[in-house]
């Protein structure tokens, strides 16, 4: 896997773009208060952006709930206060209330509606689902590396610039001004859409979701028309184009592609896209739709365009997406042992998973009592961490959901970048474990520095993978 060196530096244009979608996080790492601010901002960044709709879930339900999960006595009131204060300014409260609600729900597996064998809600431990997609030798025609262009151009997604240094992969959504009337939009090689079962657009790879409402409605009409006939549409083929449909409860996912990937590959990619959405929101979105079919989910996903874009980008870059496996960073045995040992110690103190990663490659991974993490969960988690700028700038404590581990409940992820590319993720079920995890991190960092692991990792990364000696 070639290292994506252009990853780290968005252009200034891009920052503007992303600024519109989430507030820039301005934190001072060392104080507790600002760390909580970081959490707040994290939550609000994920849930911001649209005024609260009348038709959406009423947020009053959630504020009344006792803020009982946070045990740290002195902070309780200020936190709850802060949370209540933030109701007025953003819909993050709705988001956080939503999440809080989930904790009461506990571990509950919702039966999968469509009966597909690869349901993420099946009691998902790793290894159950073998690789179902054929090893598609998808020719790398769906290239996102490109020089950003202002005009619409048909060759956008077909061009592979020869010099990667010139091309910068632009994170986040590009061509957000397109809609289904634009020729350039129609000529894209691969579209991804997420919409609700009432036809509301939730996400579109190209183009502005709001402008695609009509198109979304068409997709919804097709899917429900076939459902009314007692069947479920999977695939439509026309010439080189394939339109793949995936229904996950109240969420519809559609991929329109003229790459020559087989149906199973595209379907697998839609499954991952859905998994990414669940990682951010858990499956209790299903309940929101039950309560209100016209529920507008877009605000909940505000600011996460970059996450989806980078996932889609990785479909043609990272073999893990179709192999359902993760890559390890090549390291000397002793180095990895050292890393593994300290992670093991930490895990024994009640951390569910401790993962040390360098970009998208695993350095070491330890689970509590030998519980295992499904490679898809790893992929989605790593993608989430790497595509959110805020994780890089400070230590963060963020709710996430692992679709294969338990799609109905949140876990909490403590993420801290140890150097430019290496980050530590500690997963826990307890929402008040931040301080404990911070301690763990300090311990781990010390050990890693002492045993020179971080340097080794950096060296291995710059070496660029496995080589065959002469």
């Amino acid at each position: 896997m070639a290292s994506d060196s252009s990853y780290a530096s968005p252009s200034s244009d891009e920052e503007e773009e992303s600024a519109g979608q989430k507030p820039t996080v301005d934190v001072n790492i060392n104080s507790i208060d600002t760390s909580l601010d970081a959490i707040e901002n994290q939550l609000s960044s994920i849930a911001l952006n649209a005024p609260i709709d009348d038709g959406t879930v009423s947020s009053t339900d959630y504020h009344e709930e006792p803020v009982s999960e946070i045990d740290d006595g002195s902070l309780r009131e200020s936190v709850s206060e802060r949370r209540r204060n933030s109701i007025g300014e953003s819909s993050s409260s709705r988001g956080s209330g939503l999440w809080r609600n989930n904790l009461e729900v506990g571990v509950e597996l919702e039966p999968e509606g469509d009966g597909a064998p690869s349901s993420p809600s099946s009691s998902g431990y790793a290894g159950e689902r073998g690789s179902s997609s054929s090893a598609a030798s998808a020719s790398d025609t769906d290239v996102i590396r490109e020089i950003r262009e202002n005009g619409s151009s048909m060759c956008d997604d077909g061009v592979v610039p020869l010099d990667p240094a010139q091309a910068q992969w632009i994170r986040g959504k590009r061509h957000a001004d397109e809609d289904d009337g634009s020729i350039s939009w129609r000529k894209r090689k691969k579209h991804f859409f997420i919409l609700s079962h009432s036809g509301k657009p939730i996400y579109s790879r190209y183009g502005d979701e709001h402008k695609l409402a009509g198109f979304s409605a068409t997709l919804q009409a097709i899917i429900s028309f076939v459902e009314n006939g007692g069947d479920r549409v999977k695939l439509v083929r026309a010439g080189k184009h394939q339109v793949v449909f995936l229904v996950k409860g109240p969420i519809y996912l559609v991929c329109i592609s003229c790459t020559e990937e087989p149906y199973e590959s595209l379907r697998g990619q839609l499954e991952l896209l859905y998994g990414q959405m669940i990682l951010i929101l858990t499956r209790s979105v299903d309940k929101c739709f039950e309560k209100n079919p016209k529920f507008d989910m877009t605000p909940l996903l505000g600011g996460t365009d970059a996450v989806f874009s980078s996932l889609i980008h990785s479909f043609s870059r990272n073999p893990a997406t179709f192999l359902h496996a993760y890559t390890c960073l090549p390291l000397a045995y002793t180095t990895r042992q050292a890393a593994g040992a300290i992670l093991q110690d930490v895990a024994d103190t009640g951390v569910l998973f401790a993962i040390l990663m360098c970009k998208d490659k695993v350095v070491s991974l330890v689970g509590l009592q030998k519980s295992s993490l499904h490679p898809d969960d790893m992929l989605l988690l790593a993608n989430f961490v790497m595509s959110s700028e805020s994780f890089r700038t400070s230590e963060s404590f963020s709710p996430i959901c692992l679709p294969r581990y338990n799609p109905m409940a949140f876990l909490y992820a403590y993420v801290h970048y140890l150097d430019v590319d290496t980050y530590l993720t500690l997963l826990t079920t307890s929402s008040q474990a931040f301080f404990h995890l911070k301690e763990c991190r300090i311990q781990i960092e010390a050990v890693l520095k002492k045993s020179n692991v971080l340097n080794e990792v950096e060296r291995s990364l710059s070496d660029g993978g496995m080589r065959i000696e002469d």
Partner: protein
Amino acid sequence: MGLSSAATTTTPSDLLKFCIFDLRRGQHEGEELEKILFFFPADLPFPAQLSVIGLSEGLITFTRIFSPEAACEVIEADMHSHVFFEAEPDIWMVMVVAKSKETEAIWRIEALRSVLKEIHSLFVMFHGSIRVLLDKEPGGGLTRSHLFTFIMDYLTDFLTGNKFTLPNFRDSLKERGTVQMLTVGREAAIEVQSLVGVLDSCMANTLGYSVILFQDLLVSTTLTPDDTTNLFSYGTLRLTPRILSSGGTSTWSYLRKGNVPSQAELASRSANTLSALDGFRDPSSDNYRIVRPLQHGKWSKGKDGFLVTDIWGVEVGNLVPTTPTLWLQQTEHKMYLCVYQHKSLTIILLIPVTSMLNGEEGISMLKQQLLENASAKIFKVEEKLAKGWGGENAYHVKGYRYLLVDGDRNISRASPPGKVTTLAKESLLALNKVREDFDLEKNRGNVDAVNHEKDLEICIRAKNNAWVIARSTRGKQLYILLEKANETLLYASEAVEKFSDRYCNGAFSLD
């Protein structure tokens, strides 16, 4: 709506729906039914019919957004496949088939599409294009009644009991829309050539065409490949000796195990389709006199050796049957159809109507001429071909089950049906899968008929250890199934090389 045996009887409408509609009609509110030119089953309530048409139309429009050059081909759902074919501009044929892993309902989409293509080609040959019929009578009654009778007659060939059995994975070693040719030795070829010359001279300056069949195989033709395919299909469906002697059953049902419908049964089916037609067509169309060339058992051999039929009606007064006519595809000329048969040899003559100035009289004169001048030659050729005929298993190659397709010339050759039935279900399923992949590649332009540059090979080993090897090169495809082959890919590959060298002039050998 499942097909499992646990469910109550599945209605026929679930297993097969077939419709033809015109996008240019019925565009106004309340007139949607105008779009429908044909629908099977005819007794499906109109709202259900409209929903099939509506979904198809919706998807055609939708796919045009992204793929304006290539039309919608197929919709795959969990339980059904919808196969699309744009027969003429804005005139679409859609077949909806139910899928099931338990029964034999495993389809290859291209095989189903080739059924649609064949229906359309044959229809156009006998009735002219659908668009022309619609222009002739914009109300649609003429078109609808013609389509209904024609397609129902065509579909009776697929009836086993009460259900339609469309070509499925068991027919993977066949290619509809191609011609099967007889290989003749050099001497026989010369004789055939001279016979063709004699026939030409019989037809004198009328610029007619001849097609010669031996058994169910093509010996020679002076028509274009497309017209030849059409005539060949029609011939093997209704005209060859085997058909006539078995009372009108078609090649397809002959191959099926189980009940071969008797002539009485087929005749009663034909009558049934007519009575069903009554319920469908509107009273004003009662005036249409519809020619039914696919009606069973309507051809018979006359004393003079010519085949006669009253399908095209009879002359008032003397009740002499009218000479059949049809249209050639490219030139769109109307032709008289004359068929002469001697033992296993069938000779089809096509004479342009415009060059026969005295119509029926001219045809009888021509027939007379042929009997006088060509009979001897015909007998000789028949004898020669019969002597060299290797029987039903003439094209069997021991140890192999194969299908060879020459896309350029629309010719195919395959292992005899009797040998194909010995194959295990697993092997045939694997072959079906490989053919599907090949179809995909063809549609993407990777296997090509046109530019002859890309070669393709797929080689798989089925669960029952059978090897399925498919190769494509320069417009030709070879599919081989080896059930009793060795363990190794090398062996299987060598077996294919041997076959290719021996029977295909090395066309498929890798160098």
